[in-house]
């Protein structure tokens, strides 16, 4: 049993005109302690919705979220149950996720004040400890957010999550709002934390390249569906899903060689009106007849990989799709 288990999650939003938008359509993912799982996808793939559902910030319309073996509750008026506080979320925008009118040290100490496991007199020392853990000087505790750079603010956000002594942290695009040279610093910090504190991380990002350096396993999402998961090295060496391949091909390389990246034809469809069958089929180079009408399921393959693509399934005589049981890792 994994630390965090997402099973067949479905999240539906209401658009302002009332149309239901299925942001996530049956996604399953596991994260273990000390493991960093990267969830990669482009606009409209539902990765942010999945991240929020994973911590109970939004309600799911189907499926289940299990943390440490128990169901995760949706955040309502009541305070979050104590044991769920070990499941934390770091938001994307460090300019919005920190209260501009409070000192950052006080905000880092929030979890301590709420949790009441430590006496107040200890707070200062703990905050210093946490700041050091994320690579910030202790003197920063008395500063206000506007005095800090983007990278420093994001570290504060991470420190604040660490104060709750989490076993699992979900990070929603933690690096996107940062400068390139600062992204590497924070990325390295995440790797160190996972390793040293044995914290599991679910890292959401649109940047496949940086996830490559940080995540042990990578999952790729398209239009609400997880299309492939694999150990990161394997994913890059031999991507199985055509969308994964397209993502990899479209990344420009900073080597001065002047190669234009390959463009993927078509556009991401409206999530409210997805294509029938495989959602990627209108843009897929390898599309077959089957793809247009039958929805491929996420199927386990060798080496701890999963892929949802008819290219990798045996052609069947019958109409029913094979129901291959998921192999335990």
């Amino acid at each position, binding site marked *: 049993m994994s630390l965090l288990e997402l099973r067949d999650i479905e999240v539906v939003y209401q658009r302002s005109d009332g149309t239901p938008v299925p942001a996530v359509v049956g996604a399953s993912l596991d994260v273990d302690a000390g493991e960093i799982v990267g969830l990669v996808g482009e606009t409209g793939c539902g990765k942010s919705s999945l991240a929020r559902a994973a911590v109970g910030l939004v309600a799911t319309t189907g499926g289940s979220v299990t943390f440490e073996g128990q169901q995760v509750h949706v955040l309502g008026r009541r305070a979050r149950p104590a044991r769920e506080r070990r499941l934390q979320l770091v938001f994307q925008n460090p300019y919005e996720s920190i209260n501009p009118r409070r000192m950052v040290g006080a905000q880092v100490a929030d979890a301590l004040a709420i949790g009441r496991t430590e006496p107040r007199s200890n707070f200062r020392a703990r905050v210093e400890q946490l700041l050091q853990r994320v690579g910030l000087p202790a003197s920063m505790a008395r500063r206000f957010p506007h005095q800090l750079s983007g990278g420093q603010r994001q570290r504060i956000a991470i420190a604040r999550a660490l104060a709750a002594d989490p076993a699992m942290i979900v990070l929603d695009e933690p690096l996107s709002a940062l400068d*390139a040279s600062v992204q*590497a*610093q924070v990325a390295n910090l995440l790797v160190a934390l996972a390793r040293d504190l044995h914290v599991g991380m679910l890292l959401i990002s649109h940047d496949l390249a940086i996830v490559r350096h940080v995540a042990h396993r990578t999952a790729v999402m398209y239009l609400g569906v997880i299309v492939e998961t694999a150990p990161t090295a394997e994913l890059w060496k031999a991507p199985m899903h055509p969308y994964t391949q397209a993502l990899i091909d479209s990344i*420009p390389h*900073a080597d*001065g060689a*002047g190669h*234009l990246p390959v463009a993927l034809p078509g556009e*991401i469809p409206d999530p409210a009106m997805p294509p029938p069958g495989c959602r990627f089929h209108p843009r897929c180079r390898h599309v077959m007849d089957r793809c247009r009408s039958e929805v491929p399921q996420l199927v386990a393959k060798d080496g701890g990989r999963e892929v949802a693509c008819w290219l990798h399934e045996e052609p069947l005589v019958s109409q029913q799709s094979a129901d291959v049981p998921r192999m335990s890792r």
Partner: protein
Amino acid sequence: MKPLLSVRDLRVWLDTARGPLSIVDGVSFDISAGQVFGLAGESGSGKTITALALLGLLPAGARCGGSAILDERDLLTMPTAQRRRTRGREVAMVFQDPVSSLHPMLTIERQLTEHLRYQLGMSHKEADERAIQLLTEVRIPNPKAALRGYPHQFSGGMRQRIQIAIGLACEPRLLIADEPTTALDVTVQAGILRLLHRLCEEKDLAVMLITHDLGVLSALADTVTVMYAGRVVESGPTAQVMGRSRHPYTRALIDSLPHPEASYGALVPIAGDPAGPESRPSGCAFHPRCRYVEPSCVAAVPPLVRVDDGREMACPVDPLVASRAR
């Protein structure tokens, strides 16, 4: 070949209560027709302000000096009326965020043809035809129907293409693109890069590509100028500057990026934060973060020196530069 635009010693500063605050501190470069000129830098490098200065779009309170000669006219000292004609006609700009740079309440047709009718005096019918032609060039499907649409009906990538079409409407000679793909998905970005490449080749268009994304520059730019804290630290052909980078900042920046080919393991970050105009260190602005720092770096601002392979570099420590200085 004579360059299309020649910028010399461009300076932009703010007059604040505490004295002038330098944002761009003496930047020089040339852009030639049919060439993609890349301007690279992070926050605080002054790259966007440089572009705004060229177009006369600096925010209130900012002043500029130096020269930017386009066809024997100085863009920086042009009278307002002439500048308005030059903007759009000869120099066009495409911004990062197509959400806010397209008017949400005007149809695409209106936004496209406005320039054509105002700048070129076309009739309604002529302008519409040209608008359809432009939309076709930027590969918008169904251009006739698209004309009647509003920006919110299009995706981010489409809106960016529309913005480019508007920029190209009056057939400018120079297109300034400020982070044109930063807000877009990577697969959509690839399409926009290919579009810009094609337009550049087909129309002999000069493109000034401003971005912090070195991958984008590597793919599209012919020459790259790297800025840090308002100054140029390295410039030259892309193959040299990025393929065989020498300047400590450029090297450090490239090393801190995740390369698809690089081995796994920790990225090599640059210590500290990018220097902004308020906190610019003395001497070489990068020296507090530099691995190779020496006393000469702190003493004076290093000048830009031409080294043998067509590059210019501002670094007193680099052996190539040092040998030139002697």
